[in-house]
């Protein structure tokens, strides 16, 4: 979008905002783009932002939706662990924004530098300004680099976290490929809360799958600051069946998992991690997943709390700190909804319905949410966790008795199907969010 175009929008949007607050009887079927149409600016084109943008257009095509995203293409975090394991190619993770454009969403390739909640204006590094009636911020996560001495964004170029899929996924895969048989892979899962709770367990599984078939003398050493981790029972059962692991000692075969002793320092020159208890271990491949917080723009816009996450109202995802700005996805405090792709997709729809209703002078409809996460332990061995959520007494809650984990007793037929359903999840959530 050119400067000229955005200035023109700015003038017309000024009139639109004035009308919006009075427009209790506004017709949702008003035709026409520029003249008086309501403006939504979506910041971030990940699962949450893309879903919200698409569904707003599906629900009310008269709303002018602009999505601003830093990257030309998006790479899904989900199933990127299979790239590390060698069973998936990077191009299957790649998403273009053509689908959203087809729904009438204006996609702008730029970086948002500020959100002025008073002027209701989003500003970009490219120098453009975008006026909004409602802004939806879906910035994903950023890292608390300061918690691991010696590890930062530049060190992560060569010692990748790979917790945002893309070039770092490729780097980590190449490092695994070039590692000698008998090498040590160090994985440092993050403290809670973080994006994709079952992700570290799946990553360990996928790397073990690669090592088993290619470098069986190697070892994965995990140093986790937490007391436990998501889907632990199912993962350790799978590691025992596939990778020689012993659940009692939490070690054996290809994997050695240390709980309550996370990585606190890293020496990039010698590839040596230091754990909280003072252990120093040298790795051949090191994967540090740092502690997380909401994406940087959320803090810059004053949307975060002291812990770095964004408090929201659970039925609209409107920030409790700034009016007319909604925050969805991993950055939002939507607990008990997890920080997952499926939850971001579900939140995007709840937020879209609320924004459409509010822009049309109506009350936000009653929300409903689902989360479903799959993990692939090994070929033909998929597991899942699911939950249905409701909104009761002003809070998001789990629907009692719903959801839960794949039953622990191993059933080969069901596990093979879960893998196929995981791939269906992958294809459908890509299409539903960006297609």
């Amino acid at each position: 979008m050119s400067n000229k175009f955005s200035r023109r929008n700015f003038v017309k949007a000024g009139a639109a905002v004035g009308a919006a607050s009075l427009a209790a009887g506004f017709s949702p079927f008003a035709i026409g783009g520029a003249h008086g149409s309501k403006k939504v600016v979506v910041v971030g084109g990940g699962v949450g932002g893309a879903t919200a943008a698409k569904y707003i257009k599906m629900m009310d095509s008269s709303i002018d939706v602009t999505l601003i995203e830093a990257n030309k293409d998006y790479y899904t975090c989900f199933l990127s662990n299979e790239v590390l394991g060698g069973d998936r190619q990077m191009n299957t993770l790649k998403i273009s924004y053509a689908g959203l454009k087809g729904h009438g969403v204006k996609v702008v390739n730029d970086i948002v530098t500020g959100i002025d909640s008073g002027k209701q204006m989003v500003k970009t590094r490219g120098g453009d300004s975008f006026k909004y009636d409602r802004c939806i911020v879906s910035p994903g996560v950023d890292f608390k680099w300061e918690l691991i001495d010696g590890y930062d964004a530049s060190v992560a170029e060569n010692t990748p976290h790979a917790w945002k899929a893309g070039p770092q996924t490729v780097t980590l895969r190449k490092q695994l490929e070039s590692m000698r048989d008998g090498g040590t892979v160090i994985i440092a899962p993050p403290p809670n809360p973080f994006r994709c709770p079952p992700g570290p367990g799946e990553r360990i599984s996928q790397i073990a799958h690669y090592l088993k078939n290619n470098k069986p003398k190697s070892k994965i050493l995990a140093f986790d600051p937490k007391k436990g981790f998501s889907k632990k029972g199912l993962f350790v059962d799978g590691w025992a069946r596939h990778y020689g692991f012993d659940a009692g000692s939490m070690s054996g075969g290809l994997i050695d998992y240390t709980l309550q002793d996370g990585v606190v320092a890293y020496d990039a020159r010698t590839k040596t991690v230091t754990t909280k208890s003072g252990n120093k271990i040298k790795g051949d491949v090191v994967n540090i997943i740092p502690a997380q917080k909401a994406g940087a723009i959320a803090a810059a816009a004053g949307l975060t709390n002291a812990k770095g996450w964004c408090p929201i109202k659970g039925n609209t995802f409107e920030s409790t700190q700034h009016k007319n700005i909604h925050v969805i996805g991993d950055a939002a405090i939507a607990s008990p909804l997890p920080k997952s792709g499926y939850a971001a997709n579900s939140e995007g729809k709840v937020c879209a319905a609320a924004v459409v209703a509010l822009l049309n002078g109506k009350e936000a409809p009653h929300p409903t949410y689902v989360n479903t996460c799959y993990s692939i332990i090994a070929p033909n061995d998929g597991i899942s966790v699911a939950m249905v959520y409701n909104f009761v007494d002003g809070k998001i809650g789990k629907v009692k008795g719903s959801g839960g984990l794949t039953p622990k007793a191993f059933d080969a037929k069901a596990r093979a199907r879960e893998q196929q359903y995981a791939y269906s999840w992958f294809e459908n959530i890509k299409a539903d969010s960006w297609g």
Partner: protein
Amino acid sequence: MKHVKTLGTALIFGSLAFSGASLAGGASGEALSYTCAGCHGTNGASTGPASPSLAGMSAVYLADSMRAFKSGERESTIMMRIAKGYDDDDFDKMGAFFEKQTMHIADQSAGGMAGKGEKLHEKYCDKCHAESGMDPEDEAGQLGGQWTAYTEYQLQDVMDGTRDPGKKMTKALKKMHKKEGDAGIQALLDYYASKK
């Protein structure tokens, strides 16, 4: 697009349709159905390879299936767990939503026995699954144009007793299998996959 028109109405009436008994707390059919899309596709049009499409499916069949998943009468990997989050009213709303959508035809290749499969379908299946299993009026599941992996799972489950779809179907399928063997099942799958 159909949903654009219907949603305007839904947003107006959604907040009035609150039912205290509903586990999902009175959400509209649209809102409930949108939560399915991450696995079953936007408006129930699944991109596969295994999650079934729900678009254009019989409302009665969908709601009955969800009730059976919820009670455990019908087994599944994950649907049983998710179905426990909803009540009958929610299932009816989802069924009504998906039935309104245009039936989705899976983009997949078919094996070479579709001709044989068509004859078998007419002989053993057509009585309950009308129009190649593509007529929601029959209040049965979609067969033609459904994802093959899903249909294959269902036939496996009926054959090994995991799924009891009622005496009629079990009897018909087993009779067909006794006469035609596994090739008969493959022929049926080829036929359903060939429907465009």
